[in-house]
């Protein structure tokens, strides 16, 4: 299969794409472009993305507000969008009410570093991870450097039924990559995504060579930044067709139970 022909044509791709890492709503730190549910769905049509799994807002602020904004978009686009409930170490709210609010919510988003530089394994987050563990839910975790990956590994060991998706670290620095390789070998309930704004050709192939393609999920970080460049980076990589199919959709269907 030629994964690149539609990309060079700038046309929607003809293979299934499930994006496990999308942001719904504005980011206060910089101009994000149009950022609502309709805007995400419009971009999906432009690229040929089938399902986007969205986190509410960017990182911080009033989580009830942003969870509700996302819930409204999930109501409006039930076949295109799924959502992660944003959790916070600063509020012991029960995530269950969001899963009751919308069937489009499929997991949790943990990004405590951006919520006052709290560690991923901070005890204030344990109840949330325990909730994911009881229900076997995915938890998308923002990481960057090795200590954040190591903290995620500790949580993956502690909550073996929760399924942790480690964002970014597969394509950041050498120490983070090694920590992620070690963590994924240690914990079968750890996966990673492809989201990063800037990396080099060959980085993804190297990582897949180390851990295999079964737990690498396509994530773009859209609308934090444009999504088309990551689609092309995976499609034009030297990975095999089977590896590309797993990364673009098959792994997400299994990991997120879509």
């Amino acid at each position: 299969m030629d994964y690149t022909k539609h990309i060079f044509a700038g046309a929607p791709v003809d293979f299934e794409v499930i994006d496990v890492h999308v942001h719904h709503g504005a980011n206060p730190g910089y101009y994000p472009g149009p950022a609502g549910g309709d805007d995400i769905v419009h971009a999906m049509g432009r690229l040929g993305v089938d399902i986007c799994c969205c986190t509410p807002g960017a990182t911080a602020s009033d989580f009830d507000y942003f969870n509700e904004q996302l819930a409204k978009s999930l109501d409006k686009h039930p076949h295109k969008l799924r959502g992660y409930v944003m959790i916070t170490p600063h509020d012991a709210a029960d995530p269950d009410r969001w899963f009751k609010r919308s069937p489009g919510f499929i997991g949790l988003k943990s990004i405590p570093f951006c919520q006052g530089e709290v560690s991923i394994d901070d005890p204030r987050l344990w109840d949330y991870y325990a909730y994911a563990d009881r229900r076997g839910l995915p938890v998308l975790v923002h990481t960057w450097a090795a200590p954040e990956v190591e903290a995620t590994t500790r949580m993956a060991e502690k909550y073996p039924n929760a399924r942790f998706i480690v964002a970014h670290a597969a394509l950041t620095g050498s120490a983070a990559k090694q920590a992620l390789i070690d963590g994924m070998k240690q914990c079968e309930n750890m996966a990673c995504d492809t989201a990063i704004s800037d990396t080099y050709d060959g980085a993804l192939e190297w990582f897949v060579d180390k851990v295999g393609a079964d737990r690498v999920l396509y994530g773009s970080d859209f609308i934090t930044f444009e999504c088309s460049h990551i689609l092309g980076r995976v499609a034009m990589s030297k990975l095999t067709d089977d590896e590309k199919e797993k990364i673009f959709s098959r792994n997400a269907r299994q990991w997120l139970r879509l």
Partner: protein
Amino acid sequence: MRFIDARCQLGRRCVIRENEPVTKAEILELMDRCRIERAVAYHAIAKEGDVKAGNMELLKDTEGDSRFLRQWVALPHTFGEFMSVEELLKGMKENSVSSIRMFPKTHGYSLKPYALGKFMDAMAEHKIPVFMTYNELASEDALYAMLTDYPKVNFIISDVSYREERKLFPILEHCPNFHIGTGNYVVHGGVKTMCEYFGAERMIFDTGLPTGSAAAAVSLICFAEISEEEKTLIASGNLERMLSEVEL
């Protein structure tokens, strides 16, 4: 659509990450895979080691190779450590070098007219485009100062991240000599917005190979919600026009 890359580095560099391309053959393989016809190239030694020696290495590495458009790295003429402006222009003409790249932060010099006025006057007079990455400038204010100090020089500023839009938008409004390299310009809808507000003429396709991703850079333009004419300008037209105007 023809792609001509405005930012490519040849030669072995200091830091090489896991499975990162290094050799000219590896770069050419990536260019082929991503359908990039040619690339403006400077040499790693000119950035990381000895500027003059690196420029000479570039001539050797690109001898007889039509895939690469030669670019020299320039320094100020401090105590004669680098070519005089006259020697530089002569050398460029003799060796088919058509553009200049500068690293003011890495190489430690001022861009102000008291330091580079004569050099920039020559760039303007001979219509030689000057390339820089954004991180070589101290701030958006330093960028604005450079663009307004030398309004007749065409600057291509690349590796602009998705976080800089609010800072750069007003500079684009005020400085028509400011062009953005698209390589890491991954603002959501950024290429389309740039075309709407400032025109496709203000963007130049680049990749940052081999440390940047050619696949990502090509996809960004292919999927942009702009016309085919605008894509063609960005992918190759603007750069070709700029280089064709160089008078040496």
